[in-house]
């Protein structure tokens, strides 16, 4: 015979604490969790890439558009493409114009090099 755990969960949790729920991303890129993708989300993700804002774990997971475990320029380009309907190149040009401090092309070059070295 076994003591059934489920019937006494409140007692356990009263001492050991409730389990942390695993966060599930509902809409990638929606880092302000308003249910929509818009320019405000781009601004926030850009701030993550520039290290001017530190994302929470939930914000980080939501900002990781390509789900590679990293939030970088590729995620910014992807979220711009989703919002504006632009191509990769079109998104890059839009970012160069609107977020010059992001230095998009420089970041892409570094990314290319890192891929090259990884090989």
């Amino acid at each position, binding site marked *: *015979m*076994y*003591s*059934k*755990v*489920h*019937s*006494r*969960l409140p*007692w*356990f949790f009263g*001492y*050991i*604490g409730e*389990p942390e729920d695993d966060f599930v991303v509902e809409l990638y890129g929606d880092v302000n969790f308003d249910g929509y993708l818009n320019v405000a989300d781009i601004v926030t993700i850009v701030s993550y890439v520039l290290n001017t804002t530190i994302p929470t774990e939930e914000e980080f997971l939501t900002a990781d558009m390509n789900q590679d475990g990293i939030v970088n320029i590729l995620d910014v380009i992807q979220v711009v493409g989703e919002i504006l309907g632009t191509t990769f190149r079109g998104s890059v040009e839009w970012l160069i114009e609107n977020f010059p401090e992001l230095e998009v092309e420089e970041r892409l070059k570094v990314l290319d090099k890192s891929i090259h070295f990884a090989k």
Partner: protein
Amino acid sequence: MYRWLMVLMLLLFSCDTDSTLTTEPEMTTMSMEQNTINPGDLPWPMIVGGTEVDPACPDCKYPFMVSVQWTGNWGGHFCGGSLVREDWVVTAAHCMEGESTSGIVVKIGMHNINGTTGSETRYIDEIIVHPNYSSWSLDNDYALIHLTQPSSFEPIQLVTDTDHDEEPVMSTVMGWGATSSGGWSSNVLLEVDVPIDNSCGSYSNSEITNNMICAGDGNGGEDSCQGDSGGPLIMTNDEGEYELIGIVSWGYG
């Protein structure tokens, strides 16, 4: 009558005497008369008909598995437990009867009960027995042990889905307990699959409370046994994660 007693012997939680997979050289068999034991006098439950856990620690198939041990000259394993938080172990309340925080330690990451490689020893500073625990009926046979230092081993999550209580699913129980009723305990961690049985076989309704769950092989030969008390009854959820669904408590045999 003989047939009825045999069924009682073989169903659910009897420490059966199937020796095909046991590791100890000598075993004693139980007598029929043991089926007349009152719930309050129940013997400790053991792994019977099990197999050695693989991979063993330090690669730990079951990193949450805990050995609860006495300290001092007469020390050693006496009950199992489960790490449910980095600093909390759940075990059976009947394992904690008469025990004090200074008299026991828990060991995590063990495979050979006599070994120490890769394992952690943790002292405890609090024992919490369920307030409604009954030493006679073994209802609410739950206890929590608080560790003075957190463990680095991965805890198991508590089951939160009621479906698992009702499905006739296969579960797994593990421990270092006896490999036959009244027999020798195992030096290495053993595991055995046991089906959950909501009918609880031939156990009477008066013995089984809503806080108890029955699991065992109706054909006999696979079970938990003395020394496994307090250990985990687990199942694997849809994500392939282990969940704690029960704590080894009691059984005839």
